[in-house]
């Protein structure tokens, strides 16, 4: 399945991406940031895991229905929607705030250096040509 069409990358040495039985853990850097953000928030006691999981189940179910209709299935989009919903419900961060900030980030000039080096550190792990499934 997925590992069979994984891209050819160095499998050993310092440039090798982390692999789990031949498969990358994340398809894109934003997925790993989202995952790390969620676990770090939980570790800080911002929410109980089941509060997140119940929302994830609902978002996954909605996307299962879309996928049955022929749309692609994007697991980490479901995860993102679940986390945003939870943060809004807890009064920790409103959806409108996120949209506004994302708009501001999108308006940055090309080639900006925005002082968040994580995307670039993880860039070698990101295969732009590989979608879900």
């Amino acid at each position, binding site marked *: 399945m997925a590992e069979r069409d994984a891209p050819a990358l160095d499998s050993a040495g310092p440039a090798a991406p982390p692999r789990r039985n031949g498969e990358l853990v994340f398809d894109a850097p934003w997925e790993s940031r989202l*995952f790390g953000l969620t676990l*770090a928030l939980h*570790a800080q006691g911002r929410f109980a895991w089941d509060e997140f999981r119940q929302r*994830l189940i609902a978002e996954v179910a909605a996307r299962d229905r879309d*996928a049955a209709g022929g749309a692609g299935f994007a697991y980490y989009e479901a995860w*993102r929607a679940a*986390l945003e919903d939870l943060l809004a419900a807890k009064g920790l961060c409103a959806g409108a705030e996120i949209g506004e900030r*994302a708009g501001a*980030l999108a308006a940055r000039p090309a080639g900006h250096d925005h002082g968040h080096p994580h*995307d670039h550190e993880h860039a070698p792990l990101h295969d732009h040509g590989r979608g879900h499934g």
Partner: protein
Amino acid sequence: MSGADDDALRIEALESLLVEKGLVAREAIDAVIRHYEQDVGPLNGAKVVARAWTDPAYRARLLADGTAAIAELGYGGPQGEHVVAVENGPRLHHVVVCTLCSCYPWPILGLPPGWYKEPAYRSRIVREPRRVLAEMGLALPPEVEIRVWDSSAEIRYFVLPERPAGTEGWSEERLASLVTRDAMIGVAKPKPAAEASRG
């Protein structure tokens, strides 16, 4: 929002807002990612299986209380609570799914592969396990019963596969090299003895 670029921007926006609000530290996020990318993976589970194959008392403890038995080897943490091992036999094969989302025993298997999260696997493995396993390369004879276990927040299953033939007297380390992630989900058998790494 749609598309990977929009997702990336939105996550960057969310992270910067939460950091500014003092709800989370960037270093904590980095540490989580590093841990799951570099430290946690199916090799942990493979060591658990190899121990169970070589130590009957450990095997009994693993089947009685999976969480406690993996903790003996130093494995635990998020999604490591309520781990239950199910043991394959000559006429019984177990396979694990999470039909609702993606519950999975992270401390011993790492993060789940892409297909484990896909709707096709999550729905079809329950309805037609024999056919899905065959499609995934595991054709089981009709006399082998297949049991499908639905993981949840309450219980996360993993499969204790049968020890491959021709491995008598092997070290745990060498045995562990036969145990793949897919064998512990139950969509494959361990590698045959001939494919072991030396050691």
